[in-house]
């Protein structure tokens, strides 16, 4: 990542002159605000940023950022972002996408960007619905959801984004909530500092077509008891009274109450985001109600060589060994003959 330049940015420096056209009350406003704040705090040269997106409500975000931006076509943001980053690894590439864009039409590009470990930051807005086409179910919609294209309820099992990401050999996965600016800011910064594909699932509320989809763990009444905010090196303790925790038993995660059955804090798992074995991370990312709290924060962050860096390294190696420097050199290489 490029060094800071003492630009003394404020969030406003990252606001473009375009009018923001999301619905009032949409979770996207919060995401935009926390991203602008994060970028100001990171203090990296503005001209190095490229915000890339596909199609959908989330994908309008690049228009509102005063950086370089590319609003692509449906599902292809990861491929476009890959091209940008590989072409010029000096650029800082953030992809804005949604559950339909990244996981339905763009599922292929999504898993391959992750597999390659391209150094891009993927912010995946998950509202479990198609908003811009006015309310059809998505690959993350809960089974049974009634929408315009599932008038009798969906019969599909949804993807869990974390499981899919880790299954695709994802090295960084985090989860945050649209309105939680502080956690978002923290998570975005960790993603920014990570070398490689960083996926941040943002639990986002669509006020029009799927309002309250996440209330069971995002509302004021439920969030403390039904979410677990993970931080590397800290115990997996949660709850309004911080009296619940996660242990591993019979190869499964289990929610326990501190003080019950002789459970003390030392029995509770300590979060290790840097453990290469994906077993625990996969289970944490897949935790859902009612059995478990929903995990927030950085669940997995494993350093590995990025695709773009590996390519640079290979180039240097080949260049050091090759005698071909120019097209003229190339054209006369191999078998040639002279006609006199």
């Amino acid at each position: 990542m490029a060094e800071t330049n003492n630009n003394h940015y404020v969030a406003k420096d990252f606001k473009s002159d375009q009018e923001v056209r999301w619905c009032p009350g949409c979770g996207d406003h919060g995401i935009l605000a926390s991203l602008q704040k994060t970028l100001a705090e990171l203090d990296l040269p503005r001209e190095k940023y490229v915000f890339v997106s596909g199609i959908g409500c989330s994908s309008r975000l690049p228009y509102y950022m005063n950086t370089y931006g590319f609003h692509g076509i449906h599902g292809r943001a990861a491929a476009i972002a890959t091209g940008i980053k590989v072409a010029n690894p000096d650029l800082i590439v953030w992809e804005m996408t949604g559950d339909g864009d990244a996981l339905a039409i763009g599922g292929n590009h999504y898993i391959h960007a992750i597999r390659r470990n391209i150094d891009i930051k993927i912010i995946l807005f998950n509202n479990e619905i198609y908003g811009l086409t006015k309310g059809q179910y998505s690959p993350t919609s809960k089974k049974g959801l009634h929408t315009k294209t599932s008038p009798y309820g969906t019969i599909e099992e949804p993807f869990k984004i974390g499981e899919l990401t880790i299954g695709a050999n994802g090295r960084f996965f985090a989860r945050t909530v649209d309105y939680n600016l502080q956690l978002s800011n923290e998570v975005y910064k960790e993603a920014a500092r990570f070398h490689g594909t960083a996926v941040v699932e943002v639990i986002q509320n669509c006020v029009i077509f799927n309002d309250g989809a996440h209330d069971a763990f995002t509302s004021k009444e439920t969030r403390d008891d039904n979410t677990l905010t993970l931080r590397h090196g800290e115990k997996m303790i949660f709850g309004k009274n911080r009296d619940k925790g996660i242990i591993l038993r019979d190869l499964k995660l289990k929610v326990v109450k501190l003080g019950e059955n002789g459970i003390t804090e030392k029995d509770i798992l300590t979060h290790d985001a840097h453990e290469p074995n994906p077993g625990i991370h996969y289970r944490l990312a897949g935790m859902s109600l009612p059995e478990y709290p929903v995990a927030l924060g950085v669940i997995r962050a494993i350093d590995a060589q990025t695709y773009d860096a590996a390519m640079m390294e290979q180039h240097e190696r080949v260049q050091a060994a090759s005698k071909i420097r120019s097209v003229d050199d190339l054209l006369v290489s191999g078998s040639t003959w002279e006609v006199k």
Partner: protein
Amino acid sequence: MGKRSKVIEKDAVVIRFSGDSGDGMQLTGTLFSNTSALFGHDISTFPDYPAEIRAPQGTVGGVSGFQVHIGHKLINTPGDFTDILVAMNPAAIRANARWLRQGSTIIYDSDNFTEKHIQRAGYKSDPFVEDKLDSMNLIAAPITTLIKEALKDMDLDPKTVLRTKNMFALGMVYWLFDSKLKYTEDFIEEKFGKKPLVAEANSKVLRAGYYYGETIEALTPSYRVGPAPIKKGIYRNINGNQATAWGILAAGEKAGLKIFIGSYPITPATGILEELALRKDMGVKSLQAEDEIAGICTAIGASFAGRLAVTSTSGPGLALKSEALNLAVMTELPLVVIDVQRGGPSTGLPTKTEQADLWQALYGRNGESPVPVLAAGTPSDCFYYAFEAAKIAIEHMTPVLLLTDSYLANGSEPWRIPSMKDMPSITVPYAVKDDKDYLAYERDPETLARRWAIPGTPGLEHRVGGLEKTIKGSVSYTPENHEYMVRAREEKVEKIKVPDLKVAGKNNGDLLVIGWGSTFGQVTTAVSELREEGYKVSAAHFNYIRPLPGNTDKVFAGFKKLVVCELNTGQFANYLRMKHQKYNYHQYNKIQGLPFTVKEIKDYCIKLLEGK
């Protein structure tokens, strides 16, 4: 080596190597071509192979062929009919019988003409009698027996021994032409350098084949084809895919841009990706994408980031890329899309040639989608048209479609190597750092190209995308703005200056034979032969499809009749009917997955001229 009793002097000879797809015929043909080219022949080659890597052994469907036309005169086509056929099995006879000239020589591996093989090829009795080839000059060589004998003292497994069969056949053909073995021996040494025993076996068998030719000399005459009157210079052999890749590199160098290629493997275009993947020494970034769409989308991203970006594909892949190609139209970014056409529709004939993607290239996208379209005419031409496609893309800020095809991609010819200092310059329309007045879609008054503001440049932060924009780059659904932008993009493409159409022959006459793309060799050869025979015929060959050359109308006006020859049902003819309506266009079409033969074109033209 050795005296020859009977030598036939020829201006040109067509040789075809034919066998099972695992018999190494493509390599044999390539080695023979390169040896001929080094000697100074003009050559043209045509590999013809099945889509299956190893089709059922001994069947006609599994036959892989490689045809070489060598000449003491200038050669423009791989030849209609074969003078010498090397047949490794009966299926190779069946597949090629109708392409043999009267009096041809057929060298065949008689060990493979067992009852089983003969039946598998679909014959009931003697293949040569059934296909009426018994009057040809037949040379039966028990190749399998002979190589076993030649290698009996070496400690080799039977598989390695059998794999040298092609070298024996090649050795025999070298004897027929009194060719030098050095090029092939050097090749063997390089290829099998790490397996000296295998290298030795191949060299030994090559020589055994050569001496076998000498031994049976009494049976057959040998040929002498003198060197061709070729322009002075340094030459190399090049095929269309390699030439395409190198043309892109040349354009990058002239423009001061590094190359990015994002592609997905597809026959017959893969060679372009493979060739560019080798060129990390020249800073080429190549990415084998997860699919065709990712191929073009990574290229669009790379173009946005400031590289000369390319994606290569064939017809089915172009279909998948069409939505993204429109994104490049809308964002007005330079991009070269190469379609190496093959037989369609759908998977069609993956290894065969056709020119049926023309309409897809011109029109296969949603909305008003103007894209310049170019088509290369010969394998080495691909270098210049790939260069030209990139030059147009950069200078006019637009995606450009380059059409080649299977015939050009795999075919090869000697190429006089150009010097980069003689190639045209390329001007990149960069936006300038910290330009306070930069507007993303403001156009150059001359070319209507917008300026290219590369991410990383301070002060030029802007957004582009697939939604309709104003000049400023803001999203706009305003009716008048949309019409203005649609027309501006259209005019930008129509304003591209392309070279005038050249006429081969006189500027007026009874008939103008019109071709485009890869039919160049057959059309020009047919027309020059017709002229020699006294017909008032000329040829006009199109490499610029959109926009068409400015003098097209003037050229057409000089002739009583026009005929458009193409390997589809008439796509270019219909395009001309739309663009130049006042003419009556005759059509000569072939849709067999094969190039035209010169004879077919001549026969049709004579019929047309004689009013039949």
